């Protein structure tokens, strides 16, 4: 649904995005992670035809971002939630949404039905006639989300949708995105929130001007971190470490009474490890797998890129 090929954006001498090649499938939720200034917002702006690209190509559905004749058609199939909600404080929630419905060329009945459905889903139907200026940040974010969906877009670009929201509003927004995921909508999510990305996204891309990695969270974890087994013992001694070295586990990390071992196939390796430890007189209390968080992977990748 979204294809980019060597997409690059330069502002004068500054390169904001370099050589971005990625593909997002139909119905996929793709998380775009990266530090501030990594080029996430610039990428979304290019894909929504808000700014031009310097080099490379990109398509959304059948439309190319380079072709000026495609721009209006492309923008009709795309919904966009910018980082700043940008609503009109002096208009009611209903009037804000109606305005955008008309700009997205929805018929009056389409627009009316969509506003009612979305505001009811977001729990704001009874506030439809209130001025947006009287709303809290979380409520405004919900209205902005409804605005992005008013024309029932095929692709949704969300730029930091839960940034600066209180935990409750962030959860409501996240749950709403999960509802949209069930509808098989293609979603491109820019976020700093790694936990959110892990919970919502099918695949993630890590960007630092140029792409650092693109894969599913599980694959990234496996390829960058490997798999680690943790053995909780009553006590650790040299005899146990020697026994492990003999069966090929020379690099063993010890943390208190825990042994951390890098394994390739835990199903085969774990029984051999336990047997060696028990054979050396060790007392195994627990065997667990060490699962890195997305934050561990992200920090490792971004720091490696900086070095």
């Amino acid at each position: 649904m979204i294809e980019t090929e060597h997409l690059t954006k330069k502002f004068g001498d500054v390169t904001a995005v370099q050589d971005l090649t990625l593909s997002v499938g139909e119905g996929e939720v793709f998380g775009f992670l990266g530090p501030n200034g990594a080029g996430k917002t610039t990428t979304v702006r290019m894909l929504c035809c808000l700014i031009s690209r310097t080099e490379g190509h990109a398509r959304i559905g059948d439309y190319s971002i380079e072709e000026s004749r495609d721009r209006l058609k492309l923008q009709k199939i795309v919904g966009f939630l910018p980082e700043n909600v940008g609503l009109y404080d002096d208009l009611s929630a209903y009037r804000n949404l109606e305005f955008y419905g008309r700009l997205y060329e929805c018929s009056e009945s389409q627009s009316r039905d969509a506003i009612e459905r979305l505001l009811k889903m977001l729990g704001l139907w009874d506030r439809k006639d209130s001025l947006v200026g009287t709303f809290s940040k979380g409520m405004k974010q919900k209205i902005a989300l409804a605005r992005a969906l008013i024309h029932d877009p095929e692709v949704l670009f969300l730029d930091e949708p839960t940034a600066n929201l209180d935990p409750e509003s962030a959860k409501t927004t996240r749950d709403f995105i999960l509802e949209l995921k069930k509808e098989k909508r293609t979603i491109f999510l820019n976020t700093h929130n790694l936990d959110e990305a892990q919970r919502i996204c099918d695949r993630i891309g890590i960007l630092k001007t140029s792409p650092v990695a693109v894969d599913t969270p599980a694959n990234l974890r496996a390829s960058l971190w490997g798999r680690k087994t943790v053995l909780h013992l009553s006590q650790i001694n040299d005899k146990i470490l020697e026994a492990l070295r003999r069966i090929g586990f020379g690099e063993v990390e010890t943390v208190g009474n825990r042994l951390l071992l890098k394994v390739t196939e835990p199903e085969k390796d774990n029984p051999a490890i336990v047997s060696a430890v028990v054979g050396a007189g060790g007392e195994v209390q627990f065997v667990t797998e060490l699962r890195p968080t997305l934050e561990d992977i992200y920090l490792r990748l971004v720091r490696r890129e900086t070095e």
Partner: protein
Amino acid sequence: MRLWKSWIVTQKDFAVFRRKRYILYSLVALPLILSLLLPGSLLIGGAIGQMPSTLLASFFRSEETIFIILPAILPSVIASYSFIGEKLEKSLEPLLATPTTDGELLLGKSLSAFVPSLAATYVGGLIFMVFADLLTYGRLGYLLFPDWTSAVLFVLAVPLACVLSVEFNVIVSSRVNDVRAAQQLGVLIVLPMLAIYILGETGALSSGPIELLAVSGILLVADIALFYLSRAIFQREEILIKWR
């Protein structure tokens, strides 16, 4: 260019303006002051009865040209909000993400400053002419207004001056970030109109229909030049990256 798209933007701006009291007050107060105060000043001390008929007619005809200033002032109040308001509310990004062209947005925004300013000027002008006729008919024995000068003034010069002011304010808005700064700079467009009025008042320029036709011609050329300049400035990438 789809005019209906521009009109959607204009209608939205009208809805926002209805809640901005200072815009409403500006649109009502200035035309009312000019249309009532100028003819009304002659009522003080019975001046209207002591003036010779020819002087009375020429007074009102020269005062009429003050309505070329009004369409230059009023758009600066509205246009500065119309464009900078979008900047301040950070609503340009979602607006530009809609399937709307830059030209449609620019036209919509310009119309939202142009239509109320022109309407307020016409209402003010109408009140002025009716009031002036009421005051002078007894002395002159004929209706002073409308005449050829007022026809050229209100049909050509006033709308062209209004367009010039809107375009100038678009350019000013693209260079500043503050509504008040935009209004202060935007109002500079009044100066050439003020010069026309003062030249007419001092007799350096006759304020007849032919002279007003020439002024309208100059305004038309200036409108076309500023139109190209404002279009060059109103580019979506420029707006998003530089309008901070």
